[in-house]
């Protein structure tokens, strides 16, 4: 029994092999307890928040399916951190279709669970990173509806656009010397205008995906009509277009700009503001350090700062032979200093007085002493030798 107890006590700590933590991005030998470390927890929450925002973008297209142009296929990509693979929408007709299918797949679900088991202390956020089958079914229905609508309207529109292009081309050729409008180029111009409409109407926080999307089918007709109708008015308008070098509508102080400002503020809110330092607020002299940093910044900017460093400033110090707080020791030292100063002053005063007296006597002697002749009455004359003796004695005493 005793041997067992000793063995249990003497059981050495398990040496864990070095493992790479994907969240903290470093190697460690802490073993499975690494996921409970506070630093790891912080990094994990930041890591998962970043991926949540990406999934939020994909969920937008889940609710609002839209067509994916072939030119934008390569730009529509998501890196799945749980499965460690890049999801690119190649060969798909709808935006984020492959991403949506991936996030709904069972393999992705399995990888989420594995990741959270390995890195995360809790498994309650699994649903944040997956798309349910019901949502996918709704999305598929929307896509098919979209596809049907588009099939009927798109071809007519395209022909119309082509004819309009031809008309526009001839119109501008006859009217002015304008740029050569290649139908293909015009098709490229078209999405630009639509994309601004997309931004204005959708009011979403989409950054990467939204800018490269094709137009929503429901908006095509108005846009096209608008374009055809505007084609004649554009030449007279002062706003211009890409070819004339005019600024894009979203940068002009209109509705588009307001949206952009709100988007910018939203994005800025997402970015963590790094004004506060990560140092322990309970460290020694933390308040002093923060104040001093502010003072130094003000000094750098050139603003006048009231410097606290007088000639008598002393740092916080606990002296050897003083008991009590450090303030007491500083007060003691200042008292001692004052005493020293006072004694020094008194000594200096005395020495000065002595010097003064000496100087007076010296000055008296150096001026060729005026013979003081006191009033001597006639009666004293007879006593004159005695009087002279007294006066000389007095002079000697004062000279000392």
């Amino acid at each position, binding site marked *: 029994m005793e041997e067992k107890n000793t063995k249990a006590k003497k059981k050495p700590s398990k040496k864990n092999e070095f493992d790479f933590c994907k969240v903290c991005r470093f190697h460690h030998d802490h073993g499975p307890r690494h996921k409970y470390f506070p630093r790891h927890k912080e990094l994990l929450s930041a890591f998962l928040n970043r991926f949540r925002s990406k999934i939020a973008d994909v969920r937008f297209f889940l609710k609002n399916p839209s067509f994916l142009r072939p030119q934008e296929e390569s730009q529509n990509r998501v890196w799945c951190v749980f499965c460690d693979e890049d999801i690119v929408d190649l060969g798909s007709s709808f935006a984020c279709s492959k991403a949506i299918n991936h996030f709904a797949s069972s393999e992705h679900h399995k990888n989420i669970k594995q990741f959270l088991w390995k890195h995360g202390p809790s498994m309650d956020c699994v649903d944040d990173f997956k798309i349910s089958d019901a949502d996918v079914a709704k999305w598929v229905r929307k896509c098919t509806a979209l596809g049907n609508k588009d099939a009927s309207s798109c071809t007519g529109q395209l022909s119309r656009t082509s004819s309009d292009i031809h008309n526009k081309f001839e119109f501008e050729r006859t009217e002015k010397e304008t740029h050569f409008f290649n139908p293909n180029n015009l098709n490229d111009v078209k999405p630009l205008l639509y994309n601004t409409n997309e931004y204005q109407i959708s009011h979403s926080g989409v950054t990467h995906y939204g800018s490269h999307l094709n137009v929503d089918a429901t908006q095509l007709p108005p846009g096209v009509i608008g374009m055809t109708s505007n084609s004649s008015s554009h030449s007279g308008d002062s706003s211009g277009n890409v070819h004339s070098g005019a600024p894009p509508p979203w940068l002009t102080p209109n509705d588009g700009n307001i949206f952009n400002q709100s988007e910018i503020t939203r994005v800025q809110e997402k970015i963590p503001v790094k004004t506060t330092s990560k140092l322990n607020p309970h460290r*020694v002299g933390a308040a002093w350090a923060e104040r001093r940093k502010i003072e130094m910044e003000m000094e750098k900017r050139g603003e006048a700062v009231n410097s606290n460093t007088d000639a008598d400033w002393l740092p916080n110090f606990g002296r050897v032979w003083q008991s009590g707080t450090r303030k007491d020791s500083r007060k003691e030292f200042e008292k001692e200093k004052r005493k020293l100063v006072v004694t020094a002053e008194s000594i200096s005063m005395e020495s000065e007085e002595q010097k003064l007296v000496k100087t007076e006597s010296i000055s008296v002697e150096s001026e060729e002493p005026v013979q003081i002749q006191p009033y001597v009455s006639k009666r004293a004359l007879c006593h004159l030798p005695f009087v002279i003796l007294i006066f000389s004695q007095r002079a000697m005493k004062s000279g000392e």
Partner: protein
Amino acid sequence: MESVLLPTLTKKEEIDRIINNTIDKVLVLRFGRTSDENCLLLDDILEKSARDVSKFATVALVDVDSDQVQVYVNYFDITLFPSTVFFFNAHHMKLDSGTADHTKWVGKFHEKQDFIDVVEVIFRGAMKGKMIVHCPLPPERIPKFQLLYKDV
């Protein structure tokens, strides 16, 4: 003999400035004179380790023979040389090394690593809010001295 790396301070204003400008780092002030053998040995170790601890400590030398520094020599109760005083954010850090004086380190260090260990312990303690830390060195490496109160 001035070190190329370590600044030598001879005025109170200079000491005040370095204390006020060292933020979130340990400030090591060596009080001594260059004519002393032990001071020179300590300076050698400080110079060699200054770079290693530069991320969390600043080292400076104070010449005790200067008149303007006598205020601090008296304030810090420095009677034996060399003496090393530690500060963090203008607050004095005490070091309990088993000797009679916890306010400073008296004497030289046995080797570079000892100095680095002491400074590290002070930094760690300061970051946790401790104003006195326990010296990590074994007693045989700590210089012994006798503290006399007013030469008694």
